[in-house]
């Protein structure tokens, strides 16, 4: 009768299910936690609760019919995903994009990035127990949604980019509205700083919590603010410039600490950098067409293997297309950033207190539909 019932009391662990329905996971993510009291011994993310076969859908739909799917993967930065897919197909089919269309893409994508970071900011602080900043962040985010709605026609799951250009041109009211919004957000940033960033409770909850070393981030293939918070200076916009990003002057915020506070600071700094890009793009905005002169009617890329990566709000989003020369993909592989960013949670959370692990999870900025795809 020994073994099973005669464990050492100090060695007794139990399994705790975090999710699939838990407010802190922001979606249907389940994390199987092996706990020793309040401490985590091991964590295993269980995925697949919202798997919708987007990759398989890409094989069965025509190139253009897959466009609305992009916005359904990462619903918070739908335009970045739109951009990644459209750019990959353009590379495969050799479609030229007019310069004005590229500028419009950059402006709308960066606006989308700010709105994504603002929502993350609100939801993250909500995870940590502060409710009010969420409402202020949503107030600002709502302005962006109004602006984007006036050009794209929808508020969240945008489907604005087309092969070779964009769907609609912008008007003067959008330009003045965007400039006013940037002025407004610049005024609001010190308020966020005083209300949240300098708040002692937030600092105590985030400083030195959930350290992710440079090496760990590399091993798991983390990208975006998670990698930049660990001191890895990598941003696709800067290191592999696509679209017209090489024409703008902006910085990549990098923090060496690797804790949750560093990831928080990276995103807050990125909002400012995105505003800089938008301002420059609006100043330089060229006149001209938004679609190629010879309209793209039928997309049929040559046989081959193509890849294009873009910097989405959560990291590097890559689209790999294997084309067999027909009007739909032979294989469509979507590399989503949060999948890699989540993978390191198991190792990073080992030995942490449960509330601290939730702070770490919040700082990874997870969007579950994008992990499962």
């Amino acid at each position, binding site marked *: 009768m020994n073994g099973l019932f005669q464990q050492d009391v100090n060695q007794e662990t139990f399994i705790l299910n975090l999710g699939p329905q838990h407010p802190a996971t922001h979606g249907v993510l389940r994390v199987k936690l092996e706990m020793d009291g309040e401490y985590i011994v091991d964590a295993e993310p269980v995925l697949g609760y919202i798997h919708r076969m987007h990759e398989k859908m890409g094989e069965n739909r025509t190139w253009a019919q897959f466009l609305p799917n992009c916005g359904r993967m990462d619903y918070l930065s739908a335009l970045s995903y739109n951009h990644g897919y459209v750019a990959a197909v353009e590379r495969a089919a050799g479609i030229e994009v007019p310069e004005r269309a590229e500028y419009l893409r950059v402006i709308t994508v960066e606006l989308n990035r700010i709105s994504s970071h603002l929502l993350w900011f609100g939801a993250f602080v909500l995870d940590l127990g502060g409710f009010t900043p969420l409402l202020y962040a949503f107030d600002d985010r709502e302005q962006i949604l109004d602006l984007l709605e006036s050009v*794209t*026609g929808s508020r969240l799951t945008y489907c604005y980019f087309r092969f070779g250009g964009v769907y609609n041109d912008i008007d003067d009211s959008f330009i003045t509205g965007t400039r006013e919004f940037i002025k407004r957000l610049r005024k609001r940033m010190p308020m966020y700083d005083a209300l949240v960033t300098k708040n002692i409770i937030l600092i105590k909850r985030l400083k030195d919590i959930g350290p992710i070393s440079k090496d760990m981030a590399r091993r798991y293939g983390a990208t975006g603010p998670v990698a930049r918070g660990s001191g890895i200076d990598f941003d696709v916009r800067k290191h592999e410039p696509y679209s017209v990003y090489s024409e703008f002057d902006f910085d990549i915020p990098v923090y060496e600490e690797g804790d949750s506070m560093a990831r928080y600071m990276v995103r807050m700094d990125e909002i400012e950098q995105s505003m800089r890009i938008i301002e420059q793009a609006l100043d330089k905005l060229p006149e001209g067409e938004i679609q190629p002169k010879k309209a793209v009617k039928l997309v049929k890329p040559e046989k081959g293997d193509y890849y294009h990566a873009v910097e989405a709000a959560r990291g590097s989003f890559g689209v790999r297309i294997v084309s067999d020369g027909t009007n739909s993909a032979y294989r469509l592989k979507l590399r989503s950033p949060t999948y890699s960013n989540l993978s390191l949670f198991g190792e990073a959370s080992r030995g942490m207190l449960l509330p601290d692990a939730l702070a770490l999870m919040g700082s990874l900025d997870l969007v579950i539909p994008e992990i499962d795809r």
Partner: protein
Amino acid sequence: MSGYFKELISGTKSLFIGLGITGKYFFEPVVTMQYPMEHVEMTPRFRGHIELIPDEETGEPKCVVCGMCQKGCPSKCISLEGEKREGVKGKVLTKYILNFTTCSLCGQCVESCKFGAIRFSKDYNLAGPRKEDFIFDLIKRLKEKS
């Protein structure tokens, strides 16, 4: 030890600064829209569900039943039928059903229509208890509107 007290003081101060900000916003005007009481105007480019555009002279739908919208739709939610009638050039639309339960409002149908026969409506107060409420007969809708 002095660091501990320094942090205690600066930390407490930061809490009061935060309280001051929320206190200030408490007295500022409300920014939320009281939705059911207030009506929200949709922007000109708002993508609602599709609707048929009537011919200005006859009031009949402009559609020529080419079926491009049906073919372009990724979710296969459009079904339409037409018939040949004597004295009328081309086909006449007899049935245009939009299954809004599967529509993702991507707008491929509107883009693929070369005759300018469909557009996005501005309806957004769509809620219903039954699935059948979202199978729209667009010809019927057009007649009701005119």
